[in-house]
């Protein structure tokens, strides 16, 4: 009889822990669930608090009622010893499906309650979220400032042959080369390369920038480009490719500056050019992928893309030109000049030797 009475009384003697969140609200939670949180466990054991409403345990301010609810759901499931690992994993995967803001709040709350397994779970989820986003998206999601310069922002290497902007540049060069070839055919046997070169530079510039030969662009941007120009001129043994990570070069991202320049040069010259090169340069050569396709000039790009690409080509030409100040000076004076040889020292930095011939 006594046992029966005890049996009736037993369910009401289930232990509860009283918890108070920072907003003042208090809730009672089954003991085994609450004790799953190390912080709560510690409080109960050390201070004896939590056994009644008046002596509720004050939770850290990072734990609001909503987060507490989630955390208790987590504890309620995991504190049961009977679940298999697979069941736990399935629960976890469903559990963390929430928006990023909530996930951050949950991570913070779990951390303040020292609930390591939940912190691990949420940290991992946040890491996966970060992995799936671009830098811009990350900044938006986590409210971070866009305070890196274009040079400091890094773009990972892409498969460069698939880049449509490089393809357009190649087509551009191909077109120019074709025009030069045709012009050459009209001339006599004796090929005068210097005047031809001069015309081709001018031609290309005017093609890109309009009749003023692009001088206005160059003047305007010289102030900004000084810093980059000086960097390039310095003997920098390392990071030649990082110098190219400004927005103008995004389309040619992985190529060091010497590569651009040599490419450009070749596009402008007639095929019978005596372009002097130092011994070091053969290492920098043309990838067969960049073989100029004559005649393949059809732009199958939509007008908007084409406009953008035109702008980028302009930028590219402008950038090249900004590094050849003497040359530009000569251009503006309309004097004869010869294309400059480019040399690369063994440290990988480039020096542009400008030379000109006055006629």
């Amino acid at each position: 009889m006594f046992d029966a009475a005890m049996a009736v009384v037993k369910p009401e003697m289930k232990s509860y822990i009283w918890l108070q969140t920072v907003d003042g609200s208090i809730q009672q939670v089954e003991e085994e669930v609450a004790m799953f949180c190390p912080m709560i466990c510690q409080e109960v054991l050390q201070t004896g608090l939590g056994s009644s409403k008046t002596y509720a345990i004050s939770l850290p301010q990072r734990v609001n009622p909503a987060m507490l609810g989630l955390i208790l759901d987590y504890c309620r499931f995991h504190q049961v010893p009977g679940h298999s690992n697979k069941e736990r994993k399935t629960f976890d995967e469903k559990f963390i499906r929430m928006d990023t803001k909530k996930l951050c709040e949950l991570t913070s709350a779990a951390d303040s309650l020292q609930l390591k397994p939940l912190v691990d779970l949420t940290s991992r989820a946040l890491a996966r979220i970060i992995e799936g986003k671009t830098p811009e998206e990350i900044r938006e999601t986590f409210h971070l400032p866009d305070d890196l310069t274009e040079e400091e922002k890094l773009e990972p290497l892409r498969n460069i042959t698939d880049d449509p902007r490089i393809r357009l540049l190649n087509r551009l060069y191909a077109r120019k080369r074709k025009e030069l070839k045709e012009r050459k055919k009209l001339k006599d046997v004796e090929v005068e390369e210097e005047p031809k070169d001069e015309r081709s530079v001018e031609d290309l510039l005017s093609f890109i920038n309009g009749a003023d030969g692009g001088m206005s662009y160059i003047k305007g941007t010289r102030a900004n480009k000084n810093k980059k120009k000086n960097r390039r001129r310095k003997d920098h043994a390392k990071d030649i490719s990082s110098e190219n990570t400004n927005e103008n070069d995004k389309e040619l991202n992985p190529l060091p500056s010497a590569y651009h320049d040599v490419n450009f040069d070749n596009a402008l010259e007639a095929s019978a050019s005596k372009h002097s090169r130092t011994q070091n340069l053969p290492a920098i050569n043309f990838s067969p992928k960049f073989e100029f396709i004559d005649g393949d000039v059809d732009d199958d790009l939509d007008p908007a893309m084409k406009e953008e690409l035109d702008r980028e080509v302009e930028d590219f030409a402008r950038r090249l030109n900004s590094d050849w100040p003497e040359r530009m000076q000569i251009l503006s004076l309309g004097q004869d000049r010869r294309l400059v040889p480019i040399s690369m020292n063994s440290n990988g930095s480039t020096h542009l030797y400008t030379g000109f011939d006055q006629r």
Partner: protein
Amino acid sequence: MELISGLPEDVARDCLIRVSYQQFPTVASVCKLWKSEIHAPEFRRQRRSTKHAQKLIAMVQARVELGTGSTKRLTNPVYRLSVFEPETGNWSEIPPPPEFYSGLPMFCQLVSVGYDLVVLGGLDPNSWEASNSVFVYNFLSAKWRRGADMPGGPRTFFACASDSEETVFVAGGHDNEKNALRSALAYDVTSDLWVMLPDMEAERDECKGVFCRGRFVAVGGYPTETQGRFVKSAEAFDPATRSWSEVKEDFLDCATCPRTFVDGGDDEGVFLCSGGDLMALRGDTWQMMATLPGEIRNVAYVGAFDGTLVLIGSSGYGEVHVSFAFDVKSCCWRKLESPEGFRGHVQTGCVLEI
């Protein structure tokens, strides 16, 4: 300014250290705070101590024409950098720098220092000229840069190893006249500077370099006078004293090419493949640990992580290359899968933990 708003610094860092190495460039491009966070030495240390660092094997591997099933070909193969993640089975490729449009140099050396992968020397695949070039791929930025050339005359088939933190050591090899060299160099990756080290006692052509227990060890090789007759000796360079130890004769128990010599880490000791067997040095004696599986009888590269060796090899000349993992404790072999595009001939490799 918080790393992740709403999270305490250490918790936010906990999230960032779990991000895969392939996203490093993205993380470094978000903002100044994230960039400095990922570049800080503390980041790498915490990644490693919490076992979130990823193990990678980078290797110089021939590109395989898909569909042929074998690497037998009439033309010279083009080598590029493959990256294998033994923990996930993932294979990927690192695009080469533009200077290597014909492929990586033949017989170049590969070492890792921190987040950097350093490609040294080798022969130009078209002209077969020896080059002393140094190219560095950085995993944080996913970019190549050119380092200072190795000083001195052309040098190939040298020993090369890194202390994984800052320095690359180079010793021996041969010059353009096939004279075996005894000179040694060290390269500081961060400052991009080469320094000469004292010469080795012996001339060592085709020797193998490993860095273990704080010393750079040059193993085996042969002198100019006896071409191809590999010696069994080794000598160790101690960076602290800047001097080479006395030559240890009979370091190897048989005169063989030391190419597969690898340091398994402090607990495991060193290993070598010889005569179809995997040998381990226990104390002063070499013991046979296991027979090599037939598929990797010709071992191209052996890499070691704690307690596990990864061996890449083929069953014979021109055959596909496959990888096996060997657990040192249990002496068990496990074949690792590789997709068709990653079964080409492997020249050399190196392990990274980033």
